[in-house]
């Protein structure tokens, strides 16, 4: 056991590092792309932008992430998109996250009280100021719990990247298992490890949520 840790410890650590990296990059990428999609949908022409985005969201939400990754990684080269496993994994995670994030942001925008926008207009604030200073902050507060929740779901999706050979924690564990013929213990430890990891992230996420929404709670 100790010998195994000595031999595979560094690989497992870099694997976990990649898990964290793909998660952070995928979440940030998904949020940024999701935000742009929502802004385009909300303020752009309905037919030329609204419908393609709707179709995109339906496609991503209606198909397994694993199949999306296969399309991107193995199918991509046919249309000239030749990516290594890691960038393909991060891009796949971002494209996947964007579809969900954009829907969460849409619900957040829809939840901004109409009265606040009308009031801002009535006192003569320019449209841009209304969007950036009123709609966005209010929207973020109501969307935050769902955003945090989905970011947590994304941590679990990162293990699927192992199936297109991104050497993250799952991939490293499997390599170790096939080289040492020890199968039961590593997978069990990985399960417990992920459980703890996701618990820590959820606690942290809930604290973040409270920090940004506490004034709402005090009001109610």
């Amino acid at each position, binding site marked *: 056991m100790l010998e195994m840790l000595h031999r595979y410890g560094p690989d497992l650590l870099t694997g976990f590092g990649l898990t964290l990296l793909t998660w952070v990059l995928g979440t940030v990428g998904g949020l940024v792309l999701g935000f742009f999609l929502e802004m385009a949908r909300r303020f752009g022409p309905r037919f030329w932008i609204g419908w393609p985005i709707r179709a995109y969201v339906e496609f991503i939400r209606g198909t397994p992430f694993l199949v999306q990754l296969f399309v991107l990684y193995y199918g991509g080269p*046919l249309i000239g998109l030749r990516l290594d496993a890691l960038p393909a994994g991060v891009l796949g995670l971002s494209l996947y996250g964007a579809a969900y994030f954009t829907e969460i942001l849409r619900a957040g925008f829809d939840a901004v009280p109409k009265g606040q926008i009308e009031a801002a207009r009535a006192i003569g604030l320019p449209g841009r100021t209304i969007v950036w200073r009123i709609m966005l902050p209010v929207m973020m507060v109501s969307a935050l719990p769902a955003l945090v929740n989905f970011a947590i779901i994304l941590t679990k999706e990162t293990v699927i990247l192992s199936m297109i050979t991104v050497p993250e924690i799952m991939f490293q564990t499997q390599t170790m298992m096939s080289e040492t013929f020890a199968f039961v213990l590593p997978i069990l430890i990985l399960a417990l490890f992920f*459980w703890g990891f*996701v618990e820590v992230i959820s606690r942290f996420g809930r604290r973040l949520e409270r920090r940004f929404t506490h004034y709402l709670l005090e009001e109610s």
Partner: protein
Amino acid sequence: MFSFQTIVENLPTLLGAARYTLLISVLGCAQGLILGALLCAAALSKRTALRRAAGLYVSFFRGVPLLIQLLVAYYLLPVVGINVPPLAAAVLTVGLCAAAYLSEVLRGSINAIPKGQAEAALAIGMSPGDLWVRVLLPQALKIGLPAIVNELILLVKASSLVTVVGIVEITRMSQSIASSTYRYLEIYLAAAFLYLAINLVIAAAGRLLERRLTV
């Protein structure tokens, strides 16, 4: 060149594999509902130990990626003397995982039922068991229907991971076809649209059922 021919030729094989996708998601969802109802009863119980146990269960199955759960079930269960055939292992694991999510759905729905109903049922001498089976669960299923349909859709997608325990469903079959035809883009896109079609049908059926139940 994009080859539609490849898709047309292999569609029947993919459709055949889709039976397993459907079988696993539907049976997994059914098992998840039954187990989820028990978990939900435990979570709402007055006994602290039961509530704790239910909480631990939900946290574990929601915290560990399904891919890892499947491998744990595959490698670990036989070691403790439980050896099930691949299809049963897949349904069992998917169902155990679904139960964690569905128990939360049911709990939310039961909380939405007016408290007075339970009190009235107990007041007229109904047993707690009858209260659950006759009063609370039917209403919870109805209130939670949209979320349950949503869970079924999630399961259809999650079933793509059961390839690791040896089930040849849509994803595994598309891998096989792609590797023998070398038509990766076409086959994986066909698989994706097949999932999409299944999920759109489930969503439409769910809405129809919802309308029926509310009229």
